[in-house]
């Protein structure tokens, strides 16, 4: 478990802080009960849980500001979370022990505005994807959400701040955010972009404003607590039609990436392409075959092939969608895509009508219409034991490199006895290669292997020239240290300027450990 003298909290200070916090937000909104702090310290990581000192539920930006002031006064570190559904990337637990979790989602969960005409929403941290989806649905879906395939009760604000992304043309959640309100570590309230102008009418429609563009500072960092954010929404297209192709062989990833680059660069496909490997696809409905393979090792290729046949897919499933004013127009677009993807003779086309009968494919159709789904959760159960996390190296949309990356990933995973479970989420130039690592967290030996495996991914991808882009809390400092001294030092300099006492989420993404 991580420990650090920098975050050691004086117990007297902590007690005084809690008294003052209770006076500020109301006693019932400060919880230091054993059951609460135990649960909030839980993550799914190999190194173990990270105990927290308490949980506080503020109701407003003013209360957040008040808490930050108290934290500065008593030198108590705070760890803000929004909906707190970061399950697999650290859950609600901080990087270092002893921090006080500020759970914004419980009380700050209002949809502040939906502007149907200008197609945006303004949300507080606790608004979940499901909340927003339900609200849009009750309005007859004038606008469409872009959501993740993670927890529907996770939310756009927390996800954006962790550089999360979805699948529709609005997949880039940060790019589609506009205007933040932030309580900085020094207690100031910052309104980014046009919001800095008193009485601004363009806060949530004009992205870059006047002067330096500051919003990006609050992503994967610990400089402020974001208390509201604008998000742009896409008008719901009259027709959405998904398409699916199954490719038989592992090395077909090369052909797929070449096709993906060609079609994405030319705007043939409006959504991202999801390139899902066999286990990622059928792992949502079945588990590691204990009767056919040794759980301490990587599943043998022969067994994997058997399972592909059982589930009616090959090594890779490619999915995407088109949007159109009419079904005929959608069908015409699909015909073009189909002709391209089936040209080499390797791919089998699966139309949406057939695919949607199978939950394994329906996950994808749902993501292209921005519908939150829980159907991917069972991937965490592929192997028993409750250890689960994500490894997200960047892969260029380039056939040979993608094949190299597959070989590299398979090689690392095989050395540590785990399985290659991967979905490339493919744009025009790069893919988020979502690898799921699952292991038995109740077995110390497996924990040690999982830990070494994660670090090997960071090291070996870095050596190949690619960072692992969104590590869980447990590996954030390790991954950031691979980026070189100057980058981290600059991050720390900004930390010193905006949060001079280092009271916000010290250690998150490795920032703030220098003191």
């Amino acid at each position, binding site marked *: 478990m991580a420990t650090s003298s920098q975050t050691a909290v004086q117990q007297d200070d902590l007690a005084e802080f809690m008294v003052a916090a209770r006076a500020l937000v109301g006693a019932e909104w400060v919880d230091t009960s054993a059951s609460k702090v135990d649960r909030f310290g839980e993550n799914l990581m190999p190194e173990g849980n990270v105990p927290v000192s308490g949980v506080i539920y503020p109701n407003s930006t003013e209360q957040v500001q008040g808490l930050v002031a108290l934290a500065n006064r008593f030198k108590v570190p705070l760890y803000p979370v929004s909906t707190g559904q970061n399950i697999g990337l650290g859950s609600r637990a901080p990087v270092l022990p002893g921090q006080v979790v500020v759970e914004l989602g419980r009380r700050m969960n209002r949809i502040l505005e939906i502007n149907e005409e200008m197609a945006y929403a303004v949300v507080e941290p606790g608004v979940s994807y499901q909340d927003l989806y339900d609200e849009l649905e009750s309005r007859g879906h004038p606008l469409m959400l872009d959501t993740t395939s993670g927890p529907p009760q996770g939310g756009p604000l927390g996800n954006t701040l962790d550089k999360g992304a979805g699948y529709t043309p609005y997949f880039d959640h940060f790019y589609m955010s506009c205007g933040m309100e932030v309580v900085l570590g020094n207690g100031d309230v910052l309104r980014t972009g046009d919001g800095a102008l008193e009485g601004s009418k363009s806060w949530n429609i004009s992205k870059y404003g006047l002067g330096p563009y500051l919003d990006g500072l609050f992503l994967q960092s610990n400089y402020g607590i974001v208390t509201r954010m604008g998000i742009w929404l896409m008008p719901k297209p009259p027709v959405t039609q998904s398409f699916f192709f199954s490719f038989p062989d592992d090395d077909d990833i090369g052909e797929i990436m070449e096709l993906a680059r060609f079609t994405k660069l030319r705007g043939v496909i409006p959504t991202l392409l999801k390139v899902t490997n066999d286990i990622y696809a059928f792992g949502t409905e079945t588990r590691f075959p204990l009767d056919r393979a040794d759980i301490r090792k990587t599943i043998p290729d022969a067994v994997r092939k058997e399972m592909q046949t059982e589930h009616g897919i090959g090594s890779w499933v490619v999915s995407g969608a088109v949007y159109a004013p009419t079904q005929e127009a959608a069908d015409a677009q699909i015909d073009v895509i189909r002709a391209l993807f089936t040209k080499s003779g390797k791919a089998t086309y699966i139309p949406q009508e057939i695919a949607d009968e199978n939950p394994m494919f329906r996950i994808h159709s749902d993501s292209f219409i921005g519908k939150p789904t829980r159907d991917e959760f069972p991937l*965490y159960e592929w192997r028993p034991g409750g250890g689960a996390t994500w490894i997200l190296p960047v892969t260029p949309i380039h056939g040979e490199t993608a094949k190299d990356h597959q070989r590299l990933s398979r090689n690392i995973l095989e050395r540590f006895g785990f399985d290659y479970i991967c979905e490339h989420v493919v744009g025009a130039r790069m893919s988020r290669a979502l690898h799921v690592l699952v292991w038995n967290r109740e077995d110390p030996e497996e924990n040690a292997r999982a830990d070494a495996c994660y670090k090997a991914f960071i090291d070996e991808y870095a050596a190949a020239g690619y960072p692992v882009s969104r590590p869980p809390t447990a590996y954030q400092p390790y991954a950031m240290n691979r980026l070189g001294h100057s980058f981290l030092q600059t991050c720390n300099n900004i930390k010193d300027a905006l949060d001079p006492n280092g009271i916000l989420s010290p250690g998150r993404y490795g920032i703030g450990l220098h003191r």
Partner: protein
Amino acid sequence: MKTYFTEQQIASPILQEAASEIEKCRHYGFCTATCPTYVLLGDELDSPRGRVDLIGKMLEAGGVPDPSTVKHLDRCLSCMACTTTCPTSIDYGKLIDIGREYIEENYRRPLAERALRTLIAKVLPNPALFRLSMLAASVARPFSGVLGSKLAGMIAMTKALKPQKSDFAHLERVDSSGAAGYRVALLEGCVQKVIGVQINDATIRILSRHGCEIYKPRSVGCCGSLPLHMGRGDEARALARRAVDAWHSAIVDEGVQAIIINASGCGTTIKDYGHLLKGDPDYASKAQIVADHALDISEWLVRIGIEPVAPLGLRVAYHDPCSLQHAQRVTSQPRQLLTRVGCDVVNVPERHMCCGSAGTYNMLQPEIAGRLGKRKAENISRTKPEVIATGNIGCMNQIQQYSDVPIVHFVELLDWATGGKKPVALCATALNRG
């Protein structure tokens, strides 16, 4: 999650079953965000995984349960939202039933609470007693102020309830008026038989019109669901055995193809009869056969197809009863049927959340139930419906207390659209067919 049962404890099949379920909990934490009591109260011990831990510790320790454990387990709605959220295969329903039965057998509740629970457990499953008690409630209503809050709440709740007359209650068999030649049995229920006869009548009409001959064996009363969720396993099993006897012979001797249930809370219990009676060698296999034939009315109607005579053209907010959406995973069929008869079906925001009815929950936990009921009614009103439709009498009564929008069982709308009567709840409105 690791358990620490002794070898002696594990020799008990019940504790073994509990242990194997508890061990499936991985502490992911997905479940908390959709658990109504956690969402309302924010207490970890009022979350699914909190309760899984509490049940484990209670059973491992043996002896008299801790009052705090009893409090947190009592607050569980048995809504099963946690089971649709959790990716493990943990059967929380079985676990909470084991926990409740253990409490019932090993914990002495305060006198007033014991009396209330006994009253509920004796009265509700018995239609004659229930009718009498409603009469008594109307007499007692003016004296609510001097009664305990729970009893007063229950009495207030009965205000909206009116026993009605059925066209079919006296018959054990209703002929088909269609040609298809289906044979089905129908559960009339206990509570529903008194305060929801219009649902049974609409069900019988639509089934008969679509070619079903309907059996209603008189010996079938309460399915056992109400006592089961109060921890009274023996009473539940006794009621279940009676139902199994009747339905098993209907299946074997009369060629009944399905047991139709239109109160989804009961449906969940009946579909699980195989498990409920698995320890009884005389009944285990018969119970499984009955369970395998149990279908919600919506599942059956989708299977046989329905023919509307006049489209309804109503904006209908469909409220998913927890027992249908979470326990039985029946969500598309009611929507499909309502759409088929021309309704514009809208989903209710937070549709995974319980309305607070939850069997006897709104009588035993009126404060939490009231908050959930209000929240549900507010969410429904956001969809601006003309009618609310659902699939369970409990939800109907609960939501009705907090909403001005008329509420019906979806089968009443289906019956109306296929040539039956206008639903009672809509009679006073200007809403019309076609």
